[in-house]
């Protein structure tokens, strides 16, 4: 029995689907797993907080923005890790990262219990950059060790902070990803690109540009994610169950096939200036209308033409 309340004061209208985007990490876990099945490891009462933030006079969070534990999905055991995107942008620090590394290693030991990672992160926490970068490397290794032990590692992306920086690298190592329209996946985020390459390269204030370059619709169409879901906890739960059932193996051959696919993608779309050009060359008649399409119209249009994703994105 989970002693932790999921209530964080963001009441949602009765009867309406519960939005993933607006929910806290704890609400997402609560809605994703079978009711009452979640058992948290290293819960907030353990006060395993960041050893670095106090030096910068910054407040800590008792769970360091990472909630890990074990529960059940449709009666079957799963490990789950969820990032709280509103605490320091869901960024990875030493403790935050170590909790995910530990969870992945536990799944490797079991050789059977899959891992769900609920990403919501801007990348590495600048105040503990070295520890955070090391954590990313450890997590990427642990993801592959778990996968090579036969355990699927599924990423779910649809939070406010998106999935950027080291989080984007970890997502690319996962067995499969589900993303919603609100979800964004990338390594360098909009502001980082603009700062380094100039506003002509990328205008970080152009929200339409951001979403058609890094948003869920484009990532799914271009083979960067395996499932496109509507923004509700219920849809993410269905996608997680679906992906756990269709998990493919990994190994050198799979990765080589994926490498070839990515090379073909560069050949095919390398000259495109904008996602609109990519969608046009994929066969979308009016690319400019695509961002406005609702879930079902977009799925009907996208499903026959999308690039399939073999392994890494």
């Amino acid at each position, binding site marked *: 029995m989970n*002693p932790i*309340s999921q209530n*964080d004061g963001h009441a949602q209208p009765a009867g309406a689907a519960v939005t993933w985007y607006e929910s806290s990490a704890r609400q997402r876990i609560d809605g994703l797993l079978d009711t009452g099945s979640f058992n948290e490891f290293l819960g907030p009462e353990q006060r395993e907080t960041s050893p670095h933030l106090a030096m910068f006079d910054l407040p*800590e969070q008792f769970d360091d923005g990472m909630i890990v534990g074990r529960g059940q999905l449709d009666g079957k055991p799963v490990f789950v890790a969820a990032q709280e995107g509103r605490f320091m942008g869901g960024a990875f620090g030493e403790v935050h990262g170590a909790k995910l590394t530990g969870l992945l290693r536990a799944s490797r030991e079991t050789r059977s219990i899959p891992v769900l990672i609920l990403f919501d992160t801007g990348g590495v926490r600048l105040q503990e950059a070295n520890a955070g970068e090391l954590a990313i490397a450890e997590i990427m290794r642990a993801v592959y060790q778990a996968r090579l032990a036969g355990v699927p590692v599924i990423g779910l992306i649809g939070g406010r902070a998106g999935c950027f920086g080291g989080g984007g690298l970890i997502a690319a190592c996962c067995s499969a990803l589900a993303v919603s329209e609100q979800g964004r996946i990338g390594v360098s985020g909009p502001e980082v690109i603009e700062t380094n390459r100039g506003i002509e390269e990328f205008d970080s204030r152009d929200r339409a540009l951001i979403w058609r370059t890094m948003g869920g619709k484009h990532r799914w169409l271009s083979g960067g994610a395996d499932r496109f879901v509507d923004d509700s906890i219920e849809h993410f739960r269905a996608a997680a169950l679906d992906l756990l059932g269709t998990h493919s193996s990994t190994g050198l051959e799979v990765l080589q096939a994926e490498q070839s696919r990515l090379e073909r993608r560069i050949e095919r779309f390398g000259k495109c200036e904008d996602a609109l050009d990519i969608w046009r060359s994929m066969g979308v008649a009016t690319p400019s209308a695509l961002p406005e399409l609702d879930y079902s119209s977009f799925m009907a249009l996208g499903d026959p033409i999308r690039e399939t994703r073999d392994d890494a994105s």
Partner: protein
Amino acid sequence: MEHMTYHYAVDKRATGTRLLAIVGVVASGNLEVLVERVLADKDCEVVVNTAVSGFGDVWEAVVGDFIERTSAGGLRMSINDGGARPDMVSLRLAQAVASIAEDA
């Protein structure tokens, strides 16, 4: 950072059987409250860690007022604050006590 601890002698034990609850997140204008049923029935303790220094009087007034209106005996409430306003603090404290008042 500023750290404050307040102790209260109260009349009534908080209802329910849960041992622990957490509400809120540490973000700008927000806070988290971890509430634990770890004290004697007539004791209550509130521990505040806040990013904004110099508002001790306001904290004492807001927390004191809340404890007066609630049955919070046996509870230790630990707050990590990201600069929440008094109305948000009162709201989160009320949510924390309501959450732990549920039966386990």
